[in-house]
């Protein structure tokens, strides 16, 4: 949907005072005696999304939308049984897993043996973005450890994949031999054969540093942008890092930061046809914006025996997972190394590292017990998924602020909405499912304002990771939802924006836009300082 500001009605849900007041003044001036001079003041017409406060409709959070708890509120309209399940999932989300065997807390063991973090919360701090690491004074890089909410995906380059089918394994990425498709930089104590010299290291050590670049506006103001640079050493497969399988020329990396987890159930219930209707892969309308869906392997369909287990990608930085369930349980198995009913194999199964670990530790941590139980039960898995599906969307702030409203107009005029599609209405009716389970009524038929078209866009060379993900290319990223983005640093003051946390502010994030978003960025850069501030104020109000 391409929006024209003149097509919008002023009033929306009685939320606007200023245009209403203007209308009253116009009435007053025109309504006075016949001899009075009649002056018609222009009526400002705002897009409805500028005026709306409850971005999640009935699933909007109240009483927490100004504070650091803004992402952590359950949807108030859940029924008591659903609310109970949400709260159980909340506790699971903070569960810190330990090395197996843990005789005292057997229900919490199974961590790793290699992993990126020990609990969900460490990468989604307070249900939001993770902290962007800064470099300690006197050092030029920092080792990714317990503080890091970021990791590297990796795969062997194969030139691309256009159409998922059984013959190309549904466009799954090619694993790096002996490693897989995600680099686990941490491990349990004995994860590696050299554990006495390298305790708690995973497949390899990963270090982060930054390159800096200064951007100047025409008015003389400047912004310093930083770009993460990752280096790797101490790979488990060789003493000479250059010989490691992960250091070969055809291996591609993509850093991935933890992202907010509220409103996800609503996003999953956006009708597929509504998303596909926005796709314009060949740019037939010549607006410079394409937008295309990612089609991804769906583990739920595969488990159910569906012949072509492929679904529309909705979640992840490249829309590389189809549902909250696949995303969450994939992270449980991958990021933490906790096997579960959907992903029963350890993340490093069938690698030399895993085989040596099992032999070294007496086969006590195989990921599945004699009865066939995985490390996380079905009940645990369902609750943690439900938690992520049912966190409310924070309400907007400062909706009626003059600068914010002006910024809304500039957001429209800069064509930001070409990708940041303001609104959708979630599906309604019976037999609506989330990840294969009946969806809560609270999530259905909601008029939501996520500000994302859920599609892939070429974002230019500056942001490119040069690694495909299913059919997404190395330059494409999914449009990030903007709802709640203004609360990001209230929830976590050290959080950054974009896929690797490189942007410290909304302004920096905008300046990283390229590719299909280049013109919108140039529009932003050409604005006066006051107008740039207004546009940012609007985004911060979301």
């Amino acid at each position, binding site marked *: 949907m391409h929006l024209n500001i003149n097509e919008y009605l002023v009033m929306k849900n009685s939320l606007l005072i200023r245009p*209403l*007041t203007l209308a009253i003044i116009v009435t007053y001036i025109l309504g006075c005696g016949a001899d009075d001079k009649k002056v018609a003041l222009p009526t400002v017409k705002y897009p409805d999304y500028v005026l709306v406060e409850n971005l999640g409709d009935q699933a909007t959070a109240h009483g927490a939308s100004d504070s650091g708890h803004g992402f952590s509120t359950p949807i108030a309209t859940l029924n008591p049984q659903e609310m109970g399940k949400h709260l159980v999932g909340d506790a699971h989300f903070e569960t810190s897993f*330990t*090395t197996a065997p843990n005789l005292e807390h057997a229900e919490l063991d199974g961590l790793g043996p290699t992993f990126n973090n*020990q609990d969900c919360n460490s990468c989604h701090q*307070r249900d939001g973005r993770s902290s962007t690491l800064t470099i300690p004074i006197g050092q030029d890089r920092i080792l990714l450890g317990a503080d890091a909410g970021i990791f590297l995906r990796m795969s062997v380059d194969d030139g691309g994949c256009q159409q998922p089918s059984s013959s190309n394994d549904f466009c799954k990425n090619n694993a790096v031999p002996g490693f897989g498709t995600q680099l686990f930089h941490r491990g349990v104590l004995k994860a590696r054969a050299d554990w006495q010299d390298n305790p708690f290291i995973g497949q390899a050590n990963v270090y982060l540093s930054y390159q800096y670049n200064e951007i100047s506006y025409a008015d003389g103001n400047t912004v310093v942008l930083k770009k993460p640079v990752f280096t790797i050493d101490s790979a488990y497969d060789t003493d000479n890092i250059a010989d490691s399988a992960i250091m070969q020329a055809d291996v591609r990396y993509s850093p991935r930061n933890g992202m907010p987890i509220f409103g996800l159930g609503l996003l999953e219930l956006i009708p597929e046809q509504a998303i596909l209707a926005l796709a314009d892969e060949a740019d037939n309308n010549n607006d410079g914006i394409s937008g295309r869906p990612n089609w991804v392997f769906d583990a739920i369909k595969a488990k159910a025996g569906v012949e072509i287990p492929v679904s529309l990608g909705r979640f992840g930085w490249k829309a590389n997972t189809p549902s909250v369930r696949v995303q969450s349980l994939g992270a449980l198995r991958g990021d933490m190394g906790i096997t579960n009913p959907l992903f029963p194999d350890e993340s490093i199964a069938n690698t030399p590292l895993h085989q040596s670990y099992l032999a070294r530790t007496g086969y006590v941590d195989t990921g599945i017990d004699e009865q066939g139980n995985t490390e996380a039960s079905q009940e645990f898995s369902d609750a943690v998924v439900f938690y992520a599906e049912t966190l409310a969307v924070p309400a907007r*702030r400062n909706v009626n602020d003059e600068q914010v409203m002006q910024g809304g107009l500039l957001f429209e005029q800069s064509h930001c909405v070409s990708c940041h599609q303001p609104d959708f209405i979630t599906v309604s009716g019976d037999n609506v499912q989330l990840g294969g389970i009946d969806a809560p009524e609270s999530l259905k038929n909601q008029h939501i304002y996520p500000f994302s078209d859920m599609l892939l866009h070429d974002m230019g060379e500056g942001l490119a990771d040069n690694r495909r993900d299913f059919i997404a290319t190395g330059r494409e990223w999914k449009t990030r939802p903007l709802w709640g983005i203004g609360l990001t640093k209230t929830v976590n*003051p050290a959080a950054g924006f974009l896929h690797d946390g490189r942007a410290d502010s909304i302004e920096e994030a905008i300046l990283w836009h390229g590719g299909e978003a280049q013109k919108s960025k140039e529009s932003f850069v050409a604005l006066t300082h006051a107008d740039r501030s207004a546009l940012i104020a609007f985004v911060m109000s979301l």
Partner: protein
Amino acid sequence: MNVQKTMLAVSLSLVLISGCGGSSSTETVIAEPEQGFTFDASALINNVTTNIIVAGYESLSVKGQAFHLATLTLLNTPTAENLAAAQLAWKEARIPWEQGEAHIFGPVDALSIDPHLDTWPLNTTDLQTLLETQSGFSAQVIKSWNDDVQGFHTLEFLLFGDGVAENIKSIEELNLLEREYLAATAEVFADYTQLLAGAWTIAQDPNDSNSTPYRDLLLTPSNDIYSSQKAVVEELVNGMIGIVDEVGNGKISDPFGADIDSADTSLVESQYSWNSLADFYNNIQGVLSVYRGELTLNSTDAIGIRDFVAASNLQLSQRIDNEIVDALTAIEEIAGPNNMPFRQAIANSEARLRIQVAIDALAVVQTSLESDVLTLVSSNDWKTQ
């Protein structure tokens, strides 16, 4: 909110219409009665931030350094007295930390200090292996290891033993490697407490001296973190709710179980030292501090959330104060006449009745904070000036 805005518009229309034509001078404009209450939260925010939150973290830092020194003394002079002194120093450091859980936001999360200091459960499997296979423990090395082999509970385990039959450990049970590990981990612990205090008072990013101290973001709202006074007060109230919920519905209820047969001592916080009831008490004492605006609870004229509530409803403010005090009393009384530790109390039928009283009292506090105080913060009835 919508109703009020509609009324504002109608009121404005009346004024404007009355301005038309000369005959309007005889018309009567009915002014709306003033609604809501006025409360400038500047003094409240300043007092709670400065004299409770920052003062609490500075106290933690001081006690963290003292604890580290106590472990060094124990390392070099392993006597029963020095072990007892280190145990006491651990309990002393625990007080400001647990009280500070009434305001878990900002640097304690952003710098991952909460998991660094207070991860639970600890990883006894890896910890035992480390103590059996490694030596020459240093703070620098331990800091790079996983959170579940450092922090409060690892230190507690080393100082007090497994806590099953007793919370007393003889000096003979603490070998040199354990004392080395203890001192190195205590040094890491002390560093983090110093980092936390500095993030509030010097620079929120310790690697960027130009970053704003987190304290200043609360003191001067209308910034990118806190959009208004209301945002800061909402943060404080949600912090109180968070710990009341965690103590009532987690820390106490989880090990308590549905009945005596399902009580689970493995879920008890600070089970090695038998410090659980003190932890719970200090958690709620932290809530009372924010509510009254008093860290030591000795003064009577400090400004806290209580004064904000009183500006709207004096009786309500006193009722909630009483409810928090009742919850504190109920927690205190769990130990009973025999001073029973919590891990034993959950398996004792009489003590379970006292625990249920505490759970109920905390539920009352939580309901009041959510239904009355938070609603008051969010409502349009509150005018800041």
